[in-house]
């Protein structure tokens, strides 16, 4: 089988993985090496369905010994099987990179025998790529649950980002649909990755302090990491539910949200580029990704939505815990596409819950960039996100008594709650009002989305003339506008789902 045929099979087999970002790490070019990495990432193409192509996203092999019910590559599936040789895949990555097709490699795999055997093969490919082909670009690698700690550590030193797929939103669903996986097998490598990153961060901070006093000897990073990994890590019996709070060390190593807010208000709005991480209100590390050697771009995960009965509140709570406990960079949601006949799953032909996936991403964004809590977005009493109205607008409509907000004196955390005002817009308003009164025309020039924002703001005590004064009329107008969008009309037709408003 030539590489063209294999690539067709193994790219097709990998396409259900939602993550395809090359973000989260800055790495300068190095003499004798090919490539570099930029924190913002770069999309080199877009698929017909509009998803970004930034990495060569393939499986090492789709010959899988596991039998997950929803997976097209499961053991019992009747599909053509293929496996890359490590060198073949390394060659392919460099060939694509040189032509500016990709930013790097996204390497996942079916379980080729055992998790360790599969990971060893992936490591061999990455070693070739890094050492022999001198590739300095981005690498995202999947960790297969059940992989030994040593191999997770080894692959973490070759990849920029690791991800362990959560697969499904609860342990019960996981055990029902993935007989070969368990929650502990997933949370264990997540915890290991987090622990090692925290240890490296501590080490780098100490080194920063010591710098200038003495030269380092040997390879202390390795020593620090080895000592940071407990010989007998605490077993997590109810893995997905047993996330402990952050330790004091972890907390103290990060900026507090008060500091974040101060920094946010002082951020330079004249800059033409908005750096996402600098806009987030989440606590973040003070150690630059470029200094790290172990998983410098952090870890992410993915879970399927719509295949099992968990509601949105449950999913957002879970995401929030993952962000807090394991400092995940992203939680990706993948709308379930019925491809398999199985009584435990939605039947083939059922609509793909695209809007639900979309609203979950919006809600996730609100948690990371706007400091919303999960219960504010999908409450325990109303645990499903509205499909017609975006979660921020839905929150504002539920709390319309808190509006309108005055642009001249509202603090950043209040401005961030206004529909149509984003992290950049809020900072622009704060800067502009220092120079004088801000009008609705000024807001339009500052690219605030007035279609939504005008109903929730006053400028110098005055409402926008185009906005109704009555709260009920505002509600009716914004909901009607949202429902009439081409996206909502198309999806409502396909999905036939009801709105809460």
């Amino acid at each position, binding site marked *: *089988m*030539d*590489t*063209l045929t294999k*690539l*067709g*099979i193994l*790219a*097709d087999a990998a*396409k*259900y993985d939602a993550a395809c970002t090359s973000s989260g790490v800055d790495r*300068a*070019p190095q003499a004798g*090496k*090919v490539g*570099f990495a930029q924190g913002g990432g*770069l*999309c*080199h*193409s*877009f*698929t*017909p*369905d*509009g*998803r970004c*192509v930034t990495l060569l996203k393939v499986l090492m092999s789709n010959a899988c010994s596991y039998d997950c019910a929803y997976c097209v590559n499961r053991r019992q599936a009747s599909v053509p099987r*293929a*496996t890359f*040789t490590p060198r*073949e895949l390394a*060659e*392919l990555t460099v*060939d*694509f990179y*040189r*032509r*500016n*097709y990709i930013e790097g490699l996204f390497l996942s795999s079916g379980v080729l025998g055992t998790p360790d055997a599969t990971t060893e093969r992936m490591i061999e490919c990455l070693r070739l790529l890094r050492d022999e082909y*001198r590739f300095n670009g981005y690498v995202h690698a999947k960790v297969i649950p059940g992989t030994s700690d040593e191999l997770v550590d080894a692959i973490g030193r070759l990849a920029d980002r690791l991800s362990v797929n959560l697969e499904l939103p609860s342990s019960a669903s996981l055990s029902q649909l993935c007989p070969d996986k368990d929650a502990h097998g997933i949370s264990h490598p997540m915890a290991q990755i987090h622990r090692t990153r925290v240890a490296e961060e501590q080490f780098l901070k100490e080194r920063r302090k010591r710098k200038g006093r003495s030269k380092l000897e040997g390879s202390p990073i390795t020593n620090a990491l080895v000592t940071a990994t407990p010989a007998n890590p605490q077993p997590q019996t109810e893995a997905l539910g047993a996330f402990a709070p952050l330790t004091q060390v972890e907390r103290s190593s990060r900026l507090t949200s008060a500091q974040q807010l101060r920094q946010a208000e002082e951020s*330079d*709005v*004249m*800059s*033409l580029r908005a750096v996402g991480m600098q806009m987030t209100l989440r606590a973040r590390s003070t150690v630059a990704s470029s200094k790290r050697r172990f998983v410098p771009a952090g870890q992410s995960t993915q879970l399927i939505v719509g295949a099992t009965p968990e509601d949105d509140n449950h999913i957002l709570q879970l995401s929030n815990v993952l962000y807090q406990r394991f400092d995940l960079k992203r939680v990706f949601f993948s709308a379930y*596409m019925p491809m398999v006949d199985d009584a435990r799953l939605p039947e083939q032909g059922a609509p*793909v819950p*695209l809007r639900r996936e979309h609203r979950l991403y919006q809600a996730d964004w609100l948690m990371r960039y706007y400091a919303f809590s999960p219960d504010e977005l999908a409450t325990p009493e109303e645990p499903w996100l509205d499909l017609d109205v975006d979660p921020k607008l839905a929150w504002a409509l539920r709390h319309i008594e808190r509006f309108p907000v005055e642009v001249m004196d509202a603090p950043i955390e209040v401005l961030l709650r206004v529909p149509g005002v984003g992290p950049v817009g809020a900072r622009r308003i704060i*800067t*502009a009002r220092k*120079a004088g009164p801000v009008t609705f025309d*000024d*807001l339009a*020039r*500052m690219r605030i989305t007035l279609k939504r924002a005008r109903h929730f703001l006053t400028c110098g005590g005055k409402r926008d003339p185009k906005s109704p004064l009555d709260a009920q009329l505002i509600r009716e107008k914004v909901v009607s506008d949202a429902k009439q*969008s*081409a*996206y909502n009309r*198309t*999806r409502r037709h396909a999905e036939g789902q009801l709105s809460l408003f």
Partner: protein
Amino acid sequence: MQRGSSPSSSRRRPVSAEGARLRCEAALADGYSVALACDPSLEGVLGATGIGYLAHADAGRVRLVPRDACQARFGEQVVDTPSDASDELVMLARRVYKGIERHVATGCPRARNGACPTNCAGACARRLVYASASDAPGMPEALHRYVRKAFAEGPRMRMLIADELVVEVDELARYVLNECEHTKQFARFSLLADGSLFAAFRPQADTIPLTAGYFAARMGGERFCIVDPVHRSAAFHDSGKLGGRKGHTVVRLDRESADQLLAAKDLSPDEPYVRALWKRFYDSVTLPGRDASQRGYDLRAGWMPRRFWGGLTELDQRVDAEASTIPERYADKTLN
């Protein structure tokens, strides 16, 4: 960038900056307004702005126009400025640029020792660099008025983000920055028989000078050339041989050189197969049930404007048919 420079700068009678200043002063003294004809480049615009400033011209009585699209209005005299290849204009442009950095940064809460801080990269002045690469005919005048305002407002400038002049330059700069991003995203290199890489890209702004450093950093030791035939600019990179430590150089091309560079290339024998691999990958990663008909709008065209599609290997239907030979390294390796 090698100066030499805007295509419009050739075949003109040389003009000195001092001569332009004197003619500007004379026209103003005679009660005329002045249209300063300049090259639509950063050096051309800032140099012309400096000439107007040195002529003590009130901002309302001077406007900058691209030399190739210069038409006097009623009561206005056209004054030609030196080419942006002229050393004295470049020196003057540099004075103006440094002046903005210094003037705006003085009192800026982020300034260090009175200078524009590196952590915002001199954003107030930096946007001029991007905006000047715009193809918009109003670019020279927009930058001229921005510079005048920056000198008038000083450090307050960074707060005037809703001001119309600032917004206008901001829009130009953002558009160019977007085109730079598109250049980085959608330029496609081909491996030539001599081992070098070549790309042609047609952005709607002069992005090659702004992105050459990015490609040089990305490509490491590779030898490459990227050409923009619309703006007739090209970047060449040959690590250790060109442009000193940077390894790259950017040049302006005349029509003949541009045509020569774009002429059919002798591709590496592997190239058709690698292109086919990329197209196969692209064709394989599409998910069903999520296309434009399922969304109500075309998300792909939003992210990847159609004007670039003609240059994208993955959308070129000829690619599959051209991959007749399998390179040895991609031939059957027994694992299947």
